[in-house]
């Protein structure tokens, strides 16, 4: 018989999930936010994104080929996701050379030295962003004013959180609709809550992520700022939370950065703890810290607790005695 018999242990079938598909879905989920940014800030956004992705992929390829000397890993699209997320965490008028430095930090410092995909402790895109924020504070915090007519280079507008820090926001009457659709200053990926929520729904539908981390983060921010709003002015119980989830990187961070597989906990219980931690640290930095925004720092700090959470927070075993 001209048969070649194969033998392997069960199971003999495999689901349709693959690393490439999951990463591809994250990219797709980020597209609405990217499109809003192009509409608001102009084509420059695409240039930054392209440079960021190209550099991340190139650096990963080079490190893998010449330093690790292992099989090529760029096919799994994880470098694309890192590049895209890094770009979306930058202001729309950032010089391209800074983007290149960001990619170096993300891939060559935050990701590959730990052993590549799956082994890094900190979210590479965020590590790079925080590095850039500290190394190039001027370029990283002068945001172009959002305009539907295209990119306005000369004008730098403050972010809502920056304004709030300076005590310039009247919480009773801020532009909710504008913050929802993209008319706010900030890194270009974080401006439209609507686009980000669209991405969230897509990720949930494709079962790429579970709801636990984003809901825990946002829920904590809401609860924290509601209590703060109540103690501060009584009447701000709902305005404060709304302002804090729509402004800054709250949604981008909660949906796309905190849920990064590698740097988030493995169990649902752990995810909730991790999400609450991010929410609390973010709000502490926003309300009492030196920086107007604390999402990146909060996620990085909680990233460092993930191994501990994985060690001590176990899933509920089937048949466990209550």
């Amino acid at each position, binding site marked *: *018989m*001209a*048969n*070649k*018999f*194969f*033998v*392997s*242990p*069960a*199971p*003999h*079938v*495999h*689901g349709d*999930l*693959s*690393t490439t*598909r*999951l990463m591809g879905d994250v990219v797709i989920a980020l597209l609405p936010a990217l499109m809003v940014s192009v509409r608001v800030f102009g084509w420059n956004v695409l240039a930054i994104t392209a440079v960021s992705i190209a550099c991340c992929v190139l650096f990963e390829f080079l490190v893998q080929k010449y330093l690790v000397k292992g099989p090529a*890993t760029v096919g*799994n699209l*994880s470098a694309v996701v890192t590049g895209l997320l890094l770009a979306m965490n930058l202001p729309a008028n950032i010089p391209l050379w800074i983007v290149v430095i960001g990619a170096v930090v993300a891939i060559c410092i935050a990701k590959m030295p730990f052993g*590549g*995909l*799956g*082994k890094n402790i900190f979210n590479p895109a965020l590590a790079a962003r925080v590095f850039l924020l500290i190394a190039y504070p001027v370029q990283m915090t002068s945001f172009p004013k959002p305009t539907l007519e295209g990119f306005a280079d000369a004008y730098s507008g403050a972010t809502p959180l920056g304004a709030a820090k300076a005590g310039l926001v009247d919480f009773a009457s801020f532009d909710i609709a504008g913050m929802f659709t993209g008319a706010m200053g900030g890194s270009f990926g974080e401006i439209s809550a609507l686009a980000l929520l669209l991405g969230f729904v897509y990720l949930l539908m494709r079962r790429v992520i*579970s709801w636990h981390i984003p809901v825990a983060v946002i829920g904590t921010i809401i609860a924290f700022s509601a209590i703060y709003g109540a103690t501060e002015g009584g009447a701000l119980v709902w305005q404060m939370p709304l302002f804090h989830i729509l402004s800054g990187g709250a949604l981008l961070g909660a949906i796309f950065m905190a849920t990064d*597989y*590698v740097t*988030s*906990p*493995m*169990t*649902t219980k752990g995810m909730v703890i991790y999400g609450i931690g991010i929410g609390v640290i973010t709000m502490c930095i926003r309300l009492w810290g030196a920086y107007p925004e604390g999402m990146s720092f909060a996620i990085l700090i909680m990233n460092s607790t993930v191994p501990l959470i*994985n060690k001590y927070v*176990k*899933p*509920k*075993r*089937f*048949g*466990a*005695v209550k």
Partner: protein
Amino acid sequence: MAKTFPIGGVHPSDNKQWSKSSAIETMELPDVVNIPLSQHIGTPATAIVKKGDKVVVGQKIAEATGFMSANIHAPISGTVTAVDLQPNGQGIRQMMITIKREDDVWDEAIDRSETLVTECNLEPKAIVEKIKDAGIVGMGGATFPTHVKLSIPEGKRAEILIINGVECEPYLTSDYRTMLERGEQLIVGTRILMRAIGVTNAVIGVEANKPDAVKHLQAIVGAATDIKVQMLKTQYPQGGEKQLIAAVTGRQVPAPPALPIDVGAVVCNASTAVAVYEAVQKNKPLIERVVTVTGAAVPSPKNLLTRFGTPVEALIAKCGGLAEGDVKVINGGPMMGRALSNIAMPVMKGCSGITIMVGSATVRGVESACIKCAKCVEACPMGLEPYLLSKQARKRAWDAMEANDITSCIECGCCQFTCPANIPLLDYVRLGKQTVMGIIRARNMKK
């Protein structure tokens, strides 16, 4: 919402369409059969025939050795030509009784008529004894001796009988066809089992992808309230004993060494219930079963009523033979079945189907790095952490695995099925489980 088990689970494509509509056919009698003495969990049976003996269909040829064992009966009539080591499906030599067929002469005590005998007035003990004599074991694949299951230990009490008609394993349709075509016998068998363990209610669990089976069984039960046919959400591994109990009763069997009886449940497979009917009402021992032969490239997938000992290759030939090229022949379904290296393997009591994979489906995907996506933790129906256990098994950290409840693993394969990085999680988890179980056994022996 349809009932299901509380945690984990996956949804593999069930692919039952290939064989679900073919009615049960009787497989031709083989000329020579090899009957393994170990077709069940526990001690192998002891042969009570020797070379040269004449046997008739249904004659006991091997006797249970001890409590955790099962009798074996001649599936064909003829002459015993050897009692010797023969390779099993995995190429490992086991004791088998070889019988050369002469005609088809049945033991006279067996009632071969088609008439349905519903009345059963035997004492519970007598029923269990008859089931034991007939050598009945769990026919879903685990092959746990049924009489052991029905012997309720001192101090425990059964409250409910659950008939497992879930057949959550993809591709297979033997239980499905049995429920459709032998529903009457199944219901009588269920009532006999209820009588044997002294319970007044039974639930037949069937997944939602078999609505006609639910309807058919419900029609047979009619207005009677002792048996309930319960439709369950289609989700693998619903047919796992613990998952089924949780789906039907909401009770969770604690971690080993606890057994289903600790939550008052006894679970029997649907085909087993039919076998019980035949054994108790018709004096027919377990000598044949329905085997599904299926797969994407099988020319004519079938459900074949096959005498034990028939070589698997004869079944495959009956269904159109193997396509040339790369193949993987699996004893059982694709999630938990065992791949065969020897297709001359005889059909046994636990062989519910033969699944044939061809082409690229025969080999696994290329393994890549774990991205800690937690899909395996999400999928595990036992609430374990497969990524961690497999890592620990690779490091041979057996103590750590025991502390992480490895013994609860039911080897369902959900983790490996779902892993986007194609990591052979279950390979290592299974290795760890076997090793840890060995360590625990050795420790208990010392005590």
